[in-house]
């Protein structure tokens, strides 16, 4: 169980994510696995990207859905644990939080965040050796 006072940030050099129309798409650039999560989960990802603490995330959702307070605490901690286990976040700030984006509204009803994982690219990439970093093209 994660500590609610903690902060988890995306692993910036390995992970790219975007929230579009209420759904978050997250790419693990090191192994090809990609994820989608919608509704409450997408808003949680947005707040993770902004590097809000777990406590803040729980507080905001509880304010929006007071009748689901008990479930929210359990679900958010479980979701964070899943992001951590899949290498999408690390504990502590990255030093580069994304700007606060208030355009992503909390949905009208609460539902537990579900992280959908897709591995067909990861399965293909597992057959090839890892590729090196080559940097930007040197100036001509």
């Amino acid at each position, binding site marked *: 169980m994660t500590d609610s006072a903690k902060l988890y940030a995306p692993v*910036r*050099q390995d992970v*790219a994510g*975007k929230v*579009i*129309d209420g*759904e978050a*798409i997250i*790419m693990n*650039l*090191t192994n*090809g696995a*990609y994820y*989608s999560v919608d509704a409450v989960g997408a808003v949680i990802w947005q707040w993770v990207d902004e590097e809000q603490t777990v406590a803040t995330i729980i507080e905001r959702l509880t304010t929006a859905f007071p009748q689901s307070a008990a479930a929210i605490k359990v679900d958010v901690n479980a979701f964070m644990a899943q992001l951590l286990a899949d290498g999408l976040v690390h504990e502590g700030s990255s030093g580069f939080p994304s700007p606060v984006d208030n355009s992503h509204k909390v949905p009208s009803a609460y539902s537990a965040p579900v992280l959908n994982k*897709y591995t*067909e*690219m990861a399965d*293909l*990439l597992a057959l*090839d*050796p*890892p*590729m*090196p*970093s*080559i*940097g*930007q*093209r*040197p*100036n*001509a």
Partner: protein
Amino acid sequence: MHSRFAQSAEHAATDFASSFALSSEKFPELQRTADFLMAGSVVRANIIGVDLFEAFVRSFSHLQISAHESAPALEIRLWDVEATGIGDPHDVITYDPSQTGETVPSADGRYVYFGRPQLQTVLDRQGGTITGSVGSASRLTLYDVGRPLHSELLLWHHDHDLLPVHAGLVSRDGEGVLLAGPGGSGKSTTSVMCHLAGFAYLADDYVAVEWRGDGTVHGHSIYNSTHIDPKHLERFPQAITSTAVSGTLTREDKSLVILSQAEAGGFSGEARIRVLALPRVAHTPHTTVRRATKVEALLRLAPSSLFLMPYAGMGRTDFARLNELVNTIPAYWLELGEDLEEIPLVVDQLLKDASVS
């Protein structure tokens, strides 16, 4: 595959340049050149080995231009070891199809060595050259012939602010439909059927996407080849099937068709992307379209496209650009029916609707 070049792509570049120069000096009668226009830049193929030249330039023939006087933006310099007797400098060529390739950059990233069992090159990202050797033109794989120097060229495009995406592209009067989806989704079938119905063909698998200052998005062609599952080949007209070539290796499970040789339709080097179509085999009698969400489009486009450039550090920027693409271009599911000849009619209507909206 373990290469002696693993220690220095820069040394490989020097060795290959020397061997190429020697081949050129000793065998001028085997040297052939051709210029092509790729994404607005002149690319010159300078190849020593007549069969090698013929094998390599076929899939670019739709981009060929008259010999250009000025220096090209990229020069491809290859020699055929068997034809010239000028050896592979470090005895790396093995012809062992069980061996995987390797990619080795120099410390400063300027040179990138690409080693495969029958072909090895070094891309000089600053100097604008691809230099290397082929063991023998007769032993190139179907993929080497259909998508020559694929890894090198995609990186070169990326270095010049063009994003390689895993997609097909067809156009009418310069207005293009980008076809995005994983392998087996129907990109090749859709691209080829549109080609046969009078669309200009630009791609069935790889497109170099360019964002212009005026806000428009353009796709650039690289190859005019396609790979078709032999089980489906019979559904195409004879113009296509008569030029199909099958491979001999276990992993060569598709037949190669060089569409410029089939002479069944026209080509274009570039088109403005107007609509993003997401093909999907529907197993229904007819082909239909329905609007796709931006999320659906990104999920269909991003995973396989991002890993065309699998080098550490590139993915975040490329993902942002793909997100920009799906935010800019409307997307539709293209549910492919059993009647293949209907497909281009539906794509035509999609393009017309997108062009007026």
